[in-house]
């Protein structure tokens, strides 16, 4: 499994005056779940695209520093080679449908056909990823006849079938209804259990806090902090970066409840519950016998 290393990454879109990414360096270990947060136009999508080579291979522009996936240098590789190691899922499920395939099953096959895999291997991989994303039952449907959540899971399945070591999700639920979002989050959790490295941009901070091992906070193209969710969301200056901490953290902050062991405010419901000494036993003392 490959590490992701960025060294002094800088990037400016063509025809743009300011840098979209400004001197970004970090290392992501294999199997980590990384959350990326920051206000609109902070450079989150650009950073995601820089890890798959869309920047600078699809969008040209001025580029400096480097990004390495294992020993592969992104700026010097073709997207068609990078995509075997790093997969990406975008916001709009609709625009990720190839539009040249008649069934969900064939749609997932698209990437594998391009990779030149033998047929039997394709079938194994498609079956596996459709089941992992829980859409095997729709395999004979037309891709455009799926709901948003199903379509987005199909997009994820299409990427998973290519067996990347890293999967990047750029606001995968921002265009979905609550039910569709929940479906996608459950799917993402499943992927994480499979040991694949996950990088997710998301505005729902509760989800970021719940899933992430570490969180990147971006602002105006700069990497402000790259820490555990507890540390990030305990910061006092979050509002300067247009970010709001999860509800639990905000409540505990105003009540002054800190986790004594770590010295940070809690970020998930579970942690909050255990800190305020809430237990099922106390809630229903007479139910236990």
């Amino acid at each position: 499994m490959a590490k992701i290393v960025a060294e002094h990454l800088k990037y400016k879109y063509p025809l743009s005056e300011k840098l979209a990414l400004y001197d970004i360096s970090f290392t992501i270990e294999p199997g980590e779940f990384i959350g990326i947060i920051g206000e609109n136009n902070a450079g989150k999508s650009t950073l995601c695209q820089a890890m798959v080579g869309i920047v600078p291979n699809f969008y040209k522009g001025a580029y400096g520093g480097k990004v390495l996936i294992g020993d592969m240098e992104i700026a010097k590789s073709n997207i068609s080679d990078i995509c075997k190691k790093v997969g990406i899922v975008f916001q709009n499920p609709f625009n990720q449908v190839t539009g040249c395939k008649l069934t969900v099953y064939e749609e997932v096959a698209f990437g594998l056909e391009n990779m030149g895999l033998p047929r039997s291997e394709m079938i194994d991989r498609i079956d596996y990823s459709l089941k992992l994303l829980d859409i095997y039952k729709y395999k004979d449907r037309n891709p455009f006849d799926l709901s948003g959540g199903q379509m987005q899971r199909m997009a994820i399945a299409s990427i998973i079938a290519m067996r990347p070591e890293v999967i990047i999700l750029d606001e995968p639920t921002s265009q979905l209804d609550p039910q569709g979002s929940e479906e996608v989050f459950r799917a993402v959790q499943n992927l994480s259990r499979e040991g694949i490295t996950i990088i997710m941009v998301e505005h729902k901070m509760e989800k970021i806090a719940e899933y992430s091992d570490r969180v990147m906070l971006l602002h105006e193209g700069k990497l402000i902090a790259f820490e555990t969710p507890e540390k990030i969301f305990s910061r006092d200056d979050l509002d300067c970066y247009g970010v709001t901490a999860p509800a639990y953290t905000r409540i505990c902050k105003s009540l002054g409840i800190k986790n004594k062991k770590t010295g940070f405010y809690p970020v998930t419901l579970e942690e909050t519950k255990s800190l305020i000494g809430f237990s099922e036993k106390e809630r229903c003392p007479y139910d236990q016998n």
Partner: protein
Amino acid sequence: MIHKLDPNSKIIYIFVANIAPALIGARMATASFILISIVILTIGKVLHKTAPMLEFSGLILLTVAIIQGIFHQGNTTVAFALGSVVFYKEGLMFALGIALNVINILMSFSILVLTTKPSDMVETFVHMGLSPRLGYVMSSVFQIIPQMTKTMATITDAQRSRGMETEGKLKTRIKAFFPLISPVVMNSLISTKERAIALEVRGFGSKQKKTFLNDLQKTRYDDIFRFVLILILILSIFWRVLIWLK
């Protein structure tokens, strides 16, 4: 059953159906192939679908027959006269030859087009060496056009629900058209770029030789069908050579 034949077999049929009569050089041969095509289309239950196309080309061929019947260069033998307009046999026979050829081409292509899924057809072309990019454009047309029509309907609905008049007099319709078309165009420009990126990250630009999920498998029928076709082709070449030798 015809639907299950490998598209390649149908392409071979188109080839033989058009080359063999040319080699044999008799109108009867062309007519026979038209008959065979009709039989095949009937078995495939798609003969009725050729009607609109035949009506259209029939109209053109009739015009050709009239013009050639009256004005063909080699016209000498009078066939019949309608009032003062005289039709000649040579011209009419010449037009008949053209008609048979055109119908033969149309019918043999119809077998391929009407009994093959568009996606299979495109895949066969890509197998045969068509660029995957062009293949993509061809097959996405079958998918994306209905989608664009849907988007158009959604946007019209949205605008109507905001109180815009989109129906009625021509003037209202034209007025409604521009605000309608700009989101549609903007939408499709953005989605085209996004889709292009989505295709790239699924290895579309790969130089690797593509493989295919659907394996368009030859069946026993394909073998028989192709054997007969090749036999016909060989016999007609033989026939041509015999004529030359005489």
